[in-house]
């Protein structure tokens, strides 16, 4: 069976827009171009109605009680910034302490660093070797100065799903607000803001087969009513929390993407687990010295993060360049540091450099999975044949005993 190249297997970075999503968006680039904030004519009313319909669909997917709890943003980075900075600014007289975790996305970590400069104190919780936060650590970290806990739903690199429901119980009990960056997990794993006592949640359309440039922040309106200070000044859109003309076509697509996931998400996740296990087994049956990063049990359905010992990740990506994946190798980042997420799990630098993240999504097929697995097996073999480390390993040399000239 032939497959069409290149193959996209990097669905944590972004996802293709579902054709059904695109179809609903198109009229809003044409006749229905109105500004949703225009209250005085039909162009505005049409746009406003479409936006409100999008809001309802998004609210429904995450279990929000009211569509008024959805604040539109430009994407998850903005949602994360608004949640953390907005809450910190509003509640600063109540306390100055925030709890988060070391494997969070940079949109959270760098926002926390900024808040630290502004006088806030942040506790960065560690994770176990599968990348999970221990709810008891959250409990212990909360003080009478704590105003917010922010723990992601699922990690973007290793796919580890955090115990959000357990954490939500603790934060509710302690009377501390709970934010989650839910970008990677919404529609893919169990998520319900009501059941899980989540007070703020960041989501992004382009990670769920919607368009880029639109995201949302769920802001709870009752029990407790969450308040935040807007981080952008302007026309007072989104009930004063986020000024700026709404991205109407984007919101329409976002809504449709959520509606599809609400109907098909469960089935799709089950299909992705099968595909992922097919990929994992095929590769690991044929290759030795391959390690899985992250949790097997608590994992995003489409995520497979593997370290191919003695093969460098970027060299590997180049060898399989018709397959789009990503790596925790330093060489793929500007910083020349290997993935901080893998490091936090205690994965050694050598194996972090050797990691490849496969992100399976809605449009991947079993044929693609088999093609990729076979290509990976072949290329890892070739790269190991040209790896001095593999040769040394095969000669029985313990690489840790070698005095390397670090550079």
């Amino acid at each position, binding site marked *: 069976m032939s497959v069409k190249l290149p193959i996209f297997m990097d669905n944590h970075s972004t996802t293709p827009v579902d054709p059904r999503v695109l179809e609903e968006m198109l009229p809003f680039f044409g006749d229905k171009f109105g500004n949703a904030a225009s209250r005085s004519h039909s162009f505005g009313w049409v746009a406003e109605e479409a936006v409100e319909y999008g809001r309802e669909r998004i609210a429904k997917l995450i279990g929000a009680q009211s569509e008024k709890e959805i604040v539109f943003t430009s994407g998850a980075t903005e949602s994360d910034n608004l949640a953390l900075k907005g809450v910190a600014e509003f509640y600063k007289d109540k306390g100055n302490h925030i709890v988060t975790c070391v494997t969070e996305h940079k949109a959270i970590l760098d926002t926390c660093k900024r808040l630290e400069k502004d006088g806030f104190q942040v506790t960065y919780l560690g994770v176990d070797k599968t990348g999970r936060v221990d709810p008891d650590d959250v409990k212990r970290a909360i003080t009478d100065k704590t105003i917010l806990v922010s723990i992601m739903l699922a990690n973007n690199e290793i796919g580890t799903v955090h115990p959000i429901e357990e954490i939500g119980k603790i934060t509710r009990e302690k009377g501390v607000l709970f934010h989650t960056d839910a970008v990677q997990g919404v529609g893919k794993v169990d998520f319900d803001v009501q059941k899980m006592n989540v007070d703020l949640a960041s989501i992004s359309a382009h990670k769920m087969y919607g368009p880029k440039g639109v995201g949302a922040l769920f802001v709870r309106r009752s029990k407790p009513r969450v308040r935040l200070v807007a981080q952008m000044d302007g026309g007072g859109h989104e009930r004063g929390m986020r000024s700026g003309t709404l991205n109407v076509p984007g919101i329409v697509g976002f809504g449709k993407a959520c509606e599809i996931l609400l109907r098909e998400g469960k089935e799709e996740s089950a299909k992705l687990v099968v595909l992922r296990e097919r990929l994992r087994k095929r590769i690991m049956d044929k290759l030795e010295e391959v390690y899985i990063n992250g949790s097997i049990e608590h994992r995003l359905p489409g995520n497979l993060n593997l370290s191919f010992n*003695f*093969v*460098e*990740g*970027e*060299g590997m990506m*180049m*060898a399989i*360049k018709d397959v789009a994946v990503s790596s925790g*190798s*330093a*060489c793929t980042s*500007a910083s*020349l540091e*290997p993935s901080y997420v893998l490091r936090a799990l205690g994965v*050694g*630098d*050598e194996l972090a*450099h050797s990691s490849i993240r496969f992100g399976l999504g809605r449009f991947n097929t079993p044929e693609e999975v088999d093609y990729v697995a076979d290509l990976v097996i072949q290329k890892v073999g070739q790269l190991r*044949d*040209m*790896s*001095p*480390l*593999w*040769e040394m390993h095969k000669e029985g040399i313990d*690489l840790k005993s070698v005095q*390397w*000239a*670090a*550079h």
Partner: protein
Amino acid sequence: MAYSEKVIEHAENPRNVGTLDKDDPNVGTGLVGAPACGDVMRLQIKVNDDGVIEDAKFKTFGCGSAIASSSLATEWIKGKSVEDAEKIKNVDIVNELNLPPVKIHCSVLAEDAIKSAIADFRKKREARKAAK
């Protein structure tokens, strides 16, 4: 980042991959880099009695640019005298492969690998002379 055509060409068809007998008195071995840094190069030269590098082999753990840099290095030094091989500078490799700034360390490593192999060969030769 997009790779230059030359990097892709070398990475896909690396020249002179392999191993020379490190115990051969005419073979010099250079092993540079570190696994924790994401690149390790081993470059070996075989020098004949006229001081000419008659064979060169490499193995590299690293990104495409590291593989291409070491492949190019072996190609260049083969047939050169040890003295001429020693004159190869990392900038020559950067220019030939159009390496971007973030990949310059790959070329530095390749230059170090050549120098290290030559140093090893000389050390062996000196030891042999002393033994005579």
